């Protein structure tokens, strides 16, 4: 086989580890200082989205709220022909009705989307989301552990947690709203991230079968070769899904904008981590095994 000049992915991984560690620390600081901007799903309260034929301003809406006696601390975000009002209290039916009637007086064609979540429910949704992430991880560890080996599983989990955390960090830094759909996005990113990682790991496993790796350097060469073989596929897939998510973000309905944005960010991190985090991390784990069991190197 002819030697082709290959990029040393494992070699440069220490820089990317550093970047990821810095980002993680930034994320931890950000999350502990600012926390997340929870949407109505997790914080309880009511969220009112109004689509109008003309632009409404906060100044027009404020007196209405005052008259009804709600939303002293409501945040009003006007947009292009739509306006969002976020109440920290739960709107009751009468208030809901009064608000609609008042807005309809301003604009006859107004259309509403109102979401209300009770505090208790909000807590439960949050709890379920955490369970979902943990159980997904366990499921993946079991499956990858059986189909591959535990080192691959561990490296894959590290990468997917990294990706999920990075998306959460970005949302925390930019104060983007976190709602139930965001959790779906994070879980989907986990799904994609693992998908991407597994495809690369599959190639590493395949190459391992035909090689006699003895030293740390052998493993590095093998992983570099595998990643080089898969890099195009990784980029193409990431690109196509990225484009899909990006178009959804640009043109899709208002309520899946945040979902698409999370996907766009997550996909970038997913492709990055499979190459620069998961694969080198597997090398790290595998080399440890090699030094202990140098006499039995072919076990995969």
């Amino acid at each position, binding site marked *: *086989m002819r030697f082709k000049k290959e990029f040393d992915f494992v070699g440069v991984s220490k820089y990317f580890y550093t970047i990821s560690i810095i980002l993680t620390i930034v994320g931890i600081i950000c999350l502990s200082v600012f926390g997340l901007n929870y949407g109505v799903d997790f914080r309880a309260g009511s969220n009112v*989205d109004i*689509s109008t034929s003309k632009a409404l301003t906060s100044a027009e809406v404020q007196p209405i709220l005052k008259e009804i006696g709600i939303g002293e601390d409501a945040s009003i975000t006007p947009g292009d022909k739509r306006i969002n009002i976020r109440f920290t209290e739960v709107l009751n039916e009468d208030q809901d*009705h009064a608000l609609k009637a008042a807005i309809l007086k301003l604009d006859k*064609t*107004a*259309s*509403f*989307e*109102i*979401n*209300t*979540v*009770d505090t*208790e*429910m909000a807590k439960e*949704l949050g709890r*379920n989301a955490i369970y*979902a992430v943990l*159980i*997904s991880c366990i*499921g*993946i560890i079991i*499956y990858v552990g059986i189909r591959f080996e535990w080192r691959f599983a561990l490296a894959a989990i590290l990468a997917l947690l990294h990706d999920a955390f990075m998306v959460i960090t970005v949302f925390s830094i930019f104060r983007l709203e976190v709602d*139930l*759909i965001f*959790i*779906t996005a994070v*879980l*989907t990113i986990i*799904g*994609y991230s*693992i*998908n*991407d990682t*597994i*495809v690369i790991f*599959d*190639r590493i496993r*395949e190459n391992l079968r035909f090689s006699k790796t003895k030293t740390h350097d052998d493993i590095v060469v093998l992983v570099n070769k595998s990643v080089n*073989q898969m890099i195009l*596929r990784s980029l193409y*897939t990431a*690109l*196509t*899904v990225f*484009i*899909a*998510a990006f*178009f*959804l973000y*640009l*043109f*899709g*309905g*208002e*309520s*899946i904008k945040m*979902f*698409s944005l999370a996907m766009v960010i997550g996909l970038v991190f997913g492709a990055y981590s499979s190459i620069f985090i998961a694969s080198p991390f597997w090398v790290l784990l595998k080399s440890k095994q090699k030094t202990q069991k140098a006499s039995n190197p072919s076990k995969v």
Partner: protein
Amino acid sequence: MKRIITFIVTILVLSGVMAVSSPGLLDKVRLGLDLKGGFEILYEAQPIEAGQKVTTESLNQTAKSLEKRANVLGTSEPEVTTEGANRIRLKIAGVTDEAEVRKKMKEPANLTFRSANGCKDATDFCKIELLGSDFKENGAEVRYNTLNQPEISITVKDKAKFAEVTKRLIGKELGIYLDETQLSAPVVNSELTDGNASITGNYTMEEANTIRDTINLGALPLKLTEKYSQSVGATLGKQSLDKTIQAGLIASAFILIFMIGMYRLPGILASFALILHTWLLILVFVAADFTLTLPGIAAFILGIGMAVDANIITNERIREEMRNGRSVMSAVKLGNKSSFRTILDSNITTIIVAGVMFAYGTGAVKGFALVLIVEIVLSIATNVYFSHFLLTLLVKAGLLKKPKQFGVKESEIRAL
């Protein structure tokens, strides 16, 4: 020759079926509330009397009564489902007066028969003797009494209990309350052993009918509190649907152009498989009567992105084999075979995540996960098996024999 015919017939028949059925199919897809407007409420049920438990039976009973009410109010396709141990989810589409419906849904929650036993005042009916749940479902009827006045007759479930109450209260008033409103307060004349009672008063026929309906509907065994609600205006729903479909079409067009530009003829086959995949997904939606929601569409479009992955993996693999100097035939064979395992592994891990989402999610998350799972399964059928089938047919027919047709340059090929 036979293979070329098989290929052409397969493509033509499938294209024809898809073209003819698509418009009808698309119309039949059931749209979620976020796409056509309507509202959804999640109720938490509590027992009417403190200290009692919410049973599966009473929960189902409550759900049934809710559905009945929604039907009486003339809403289209109300969807009532129980969730967990004490929750009921109600979805109603296309309602003009939402507030009214909402009020009606839980209004006659408490039908009670009360006595003044042990109360401060004789007119202060403080002791609840019988509950709405003690009365037979649909047991209330309007009839004319001997004075030709309408009266409402009701039937209790437990005759002995009713007999005991009426025996104890002979000569006393038994107040009939709907929540805190007194409907009537007849004096008990004798012990009622047959389980029937009638409510009399100076009612008009219309009033009597209203009371009857309220009592019949009012037999809600549980008290409901709204825990979560979402309401979407019809215009807003339509807007979301249009925008998202438009975004989806743009994304899909881009993906197809990318596939064809990148992989040439196999790319065209892959595009066909992708279109088939989308059509099958819609078919499954209609056949299984799933509801399509906005997150569902998101999963739909992203799933296409993922299905593309299967095609990319296969085609990249085939190209790689060709660059390694294999013949087109053996490159396709090997590429198909070895890519299959990779695709399966990567898709199963995603199914695991989607499965967890389905198990732990509610509403929108569940819908999203469901679409993702269906898509992955369909993707393996269409973008793996069907794609492979078409490709192999063409290769065996001799129509695909140059690496160039796969987008592989001659200069890239090295000796095996």
